[in-house]
């Protein structure tokens, strides 16, 4: 049995697998499959200052080896999260990450301030949601705006701060550097890639929002490339995600440069994926005589 524990921005995780925001709600449903302590952590459904009902359906479409989604940040609002969900989550013996999104920089700051007074373990700044009209990804696509919002939120955020990056940019490494320079404790990537599907008979986009975010195995090679580029460009830890579906994918992402991992879309076909992936990582470490999972991070030998 190898040591699967990792540390990100001073926070200890029992293993490197974190449920990705938006695929796991506030944990209650998957808690009906296995104890949530099987996960290193949970990045909760993205929350906003006020309740949001999200986009009209359809909100999902299957694609080759992936899905498009456009939920549009449906959530009960930060106050309901703090009063109704956080106390239960904190009893689950896993790291709890609050994922926050807003229409304005001020909204992000207000939420960071509120959550800093709770016992949430970390805050993940969602500046990469492609499915809302205002806010979301508009803050995440230039170095200047990423630096600005990270710096502003940093002033109000007393928790370790993760900035979640969009892949829909020209140079993700320089964006990550802007987040780091403005005070981010870690970056997580990639959020979804913007995509579209059209029904050829009705000529209507399948998703009511017209476009949606692509996730699943289809995006994995893009995610590996971006994690590799970002981890070479910053000193802060990188949380890698994007299409991880098997333990081999997880090991590959760690080798590319990730310190911890998030998994999401694979849960829809296999709710037990986190348990199986952890077992597989552990076997790989044992078979290769590696004592700790941390020894894999960034060990890629590029040509």
């Amino acid at each position: 049995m190898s040591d699967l524990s990792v540390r990100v921005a001073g926070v200890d995780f029992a293993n490197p697998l974190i449920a990705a925001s938006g695929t796991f709600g506030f944990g209650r449903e998957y808690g009906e499959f296995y104890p949530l302590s099987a996960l290193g952590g949970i990045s909760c459904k993205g929350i906003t200052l006020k309740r949001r009902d999200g986009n009209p359906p359809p909100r999902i479409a299957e694609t080759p080896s992936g899905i498009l989604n456009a939920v549009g940040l449906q959530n009960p609002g930060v106050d309901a999260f703090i009063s109704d969900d956080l106390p239960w989550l904190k009893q689950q013996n896993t790291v709890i990450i609050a994922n926050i999104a807003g229409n304005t920089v001020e909204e992000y700051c207000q939420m960071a301030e509120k959550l800093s007074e709770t016992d949430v373990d970390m805050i993940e700044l969602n500046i990469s949601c492609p499915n809302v009209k205002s806010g979301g990804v508009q803050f995440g696509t230039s170095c200047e705006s990423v630096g600005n919002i990270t710096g502003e939120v940093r002033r109000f955020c007393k928790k370790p701060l993760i900035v979640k990056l969009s892949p829909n940019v020209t140079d993700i490494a320089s964006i990550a550097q802007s987040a780091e320079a403005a005070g981010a404790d870690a970056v997580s990537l990639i959020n979804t890639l913007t995509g579209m599907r059209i029904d050829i008979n009705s000529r209507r986009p399948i998703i009511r929002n017209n476009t949606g975010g692509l996730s699943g195995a289809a995006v994995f090679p893009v995610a590996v490339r971006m994690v590799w580029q970002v981890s070479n460009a910053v000193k802060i830890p990188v949380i890698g995600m994007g299409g991880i579906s098997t333990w081999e994918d997880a090991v590959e992402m760690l080798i590319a440069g990730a310190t911890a991992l998030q998994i999401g879309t694979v849960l829809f076909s296999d709710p037990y994926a986190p348990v199986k992936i952890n077992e597989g990582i552990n076997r790989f470490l044992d078979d290769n005589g590696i004592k700790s999972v941390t020894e894999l991070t960034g060990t890629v030998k590029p040509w």
Partner: protein
Amino acid sequence: MKYDVRQLPLISNEEIARGIFDMRLRYEQDDLPAECGQFAHVYVPGKTLRRPISVCDASDGVLRLVYQVKGGGTKLMSEMKAGGTVDVLVPLGHGFEIKKDRRYCLVGGGIGVPPMLYTAKQCDKPVIITGFRDKSLVILQEELAAEGETLLCTDDGSAGRKGFVTDLLREKIADTDEVCACGPTPMLKAVAAVCSEFSKPCQVSLEERMGCGVGACLVCAVKVRKNGEEIMQHVCKNGPVFNAEEVFF
């Protein structure tokens, strides 16, 4: 733990009408603890999403899923062979609530008919109205007839009466205490309108493109009225069966 993924042996998987298949799976216990109107989330190898299929029957250790081939996923399902196993997450969702000593009228349209078989088995001599586009799509008539009085219609009159399920419902609604319906949204809307006109309670089973199947990913959203407030609920967890009065059609 409330949920579990099961590997169920596939007994048979036959085409019972044009493009409509009857998958029968062996369940370990005598009976699957499923409510009528609940669904199974079927894993299709190579696909990112499971396919939600309503429970057609769950009796005598056999789970039946009757489904229509509509795309690549259900096509792969139709090619699954007896002797193998199928990975299913079942039972899921909130089904029809059937009370004792009530006269039920069950209304099914097209591929919305299958869940009405298991529902009929929970009712005492229900009236069962089914409608199809044409006779090539008619299914389950003999089995439904064993559970209650059946009335059949098709859009073109090629089987049963020519017309819509609502025409037949109007003839039967006076002797009905409650209606349960499953089918295309325009049909559900029309059934709900007839029930409203005659002040009869109505439960409808809705469909929406689904992700996780358990209420975590929030994609299969439906706007409903609850206690005077408009809120978003989800077909997989709060439904698929909803009180028709709560639904915005």
